[in-house]
């Protein structure tokens, strides 16, 4: 047995989860899909006195569409959303991003909320949440609150979720009109963490002019980041391929990639810019078709 010993809790209601979190605070960790937490426990990169397994909490599972919003309960498996055609139609970025997460065996177990709450800077769903201005619903013993994605990701593996709280649901805005979306990333091998990645969404009017745009990066900073200056430059234009390259160069100016064993910072900037141009080209193609 590789992880350090822990006390195991398997509550069946959200109220019991938040009670346990209130009782144990930073000595407790929520176990959702376990595809990041269990390796970290096995490698003893971390240890907790209490593990709160939320897999038996029915309230944390399911996908609901209401006017203009797709709500994904945090404990919903990534594979369940991947194979939900209605969810993919409502928020095409989920259908674009989820197949890029690990491998199908990982997605069978991993959860949407787990990926976002884990907040690895190279993971896809945090960048999708940020690009779409999703609202993150956080539950605690005294009730729940909603946090904008732009205020949620505080640093690598650090979010606005308090030690006595749990991410309970993600509310993704549904874009209307002529919209198109794309996720582009570069990874050494299929399923690896991306060296750099881009999430893009555009909405165009009848003449093909961009009326709304969203661009975010993964793997290019300690948190997912929005390319707001590039969005501003894109919106209101009918960009050519050359314009897209210009916008892409502007976009990487909002990032701060670091060097590691996999790639230098310069390489990430170079690749990141090309991925922006590629993602915008594909998103615009989808929006105009």
């Amino acid at each position, binding site marked *: *047995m*590789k*992880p*350090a*010993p*822990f*006390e*195991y809790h*398997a509550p069946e209601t959200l109220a019991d989860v938040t009670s346990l979190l209130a009782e144990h605070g930073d000595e407790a960790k929520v176990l959702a899909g*376990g*595809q990041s937490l*269990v*390796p970290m*426990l*096995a*490698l003893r990169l971390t240890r907790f006195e209490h*593990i709160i*397994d939320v*897999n038996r909490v029915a309230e944390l599972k399911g996908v609901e569409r209401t006017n203009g919003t797709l709500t994904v309960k945090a404990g919903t498996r990534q*594979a369940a959303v991947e194979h939900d055609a209605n969810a993919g139609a409502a928020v095409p970025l989920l259908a674009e991003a989820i197949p890029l997460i*690990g*491998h*199908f*065996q*990982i997605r*069978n*177990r991993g959860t949407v909320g787990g990926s976002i709450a884990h907040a690895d800077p190279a993971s896809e769903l945090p960048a999708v949440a940020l690009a779409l201005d999703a609202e993150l619903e956080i539950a605690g013993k005294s009730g729940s609150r909603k946090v904008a994605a732009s205020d949620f990701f505080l640093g690598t593996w650090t979010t606005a979720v308090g030690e006595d709280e749990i991410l309970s649901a993600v509310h993704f805005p549904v874009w209307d009109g002529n919209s198109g979306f794309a996720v582009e990333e570069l990874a050494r*091998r*299929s*399923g690896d963490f991306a060296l750099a990645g881009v999430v893009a969404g555009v909405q165009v009017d009848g003449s093909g002019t961009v009326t709304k745009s969203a661009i975010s990066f993964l793997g290019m900073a300690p948190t997912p980041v929005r390319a707001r200056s590039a969005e501003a430059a894109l919106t209101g234009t009918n960009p050519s391929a050359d314009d897209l390259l210009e916008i892409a160069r502007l976009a990487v100016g909002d990032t701060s990639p670091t060097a590691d064993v996999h790639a230098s910072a310069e390489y990430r900037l170079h690749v990141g810019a090309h991925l922006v141009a590629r993602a915008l080209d594909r998103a615009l193609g989808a929006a105009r078709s």
Partner: protein
Amino acid sequence: MTEHSISITVNGEKRAGHVEARKTLADWLREDCGLTGTHLGCEHGVCGACTVTIDGDAVRSCLVFAVQADGAEVITIEGIGGNDGTLSPVQEAFRQCHGLQCGFCTPGFVVSVTSFLESNPNPSEEEIREGLSGNLCRCTGYQNIVKAVQMAAEEMAPGK
């Protein structure tokens, strides 16, 4: 440490036991059930050698604690072939195509491919390679594994 009582149906047979919460399903299958066909390579979710199905979904059994699978139905490599030792179509295709050399990774591949073909019975080569990406093999170079999946898909096609 507290031990937890669990009951898991493994390859159709109900097995009960007591486990520490930190014992993975993979370790429980191997050590407590004696089902050593499930192999452990990396033990942190990278190599795929320990793949089993839980309630029909292929997962890495080193990333699930046995206590979490309480009440579930688990299929391991020992449950893939017939009770009389006959090989499943996927196993037979791996043998025919030389889709294994040392064999260490093979249980994980066979369980993953069996599950993959259930949800995608007529895959393209690109889809096969994507479907295989969660399992590592250090011997074959994958070419013959891809061929084995193609042969298995043909063998399992309706009307065959």
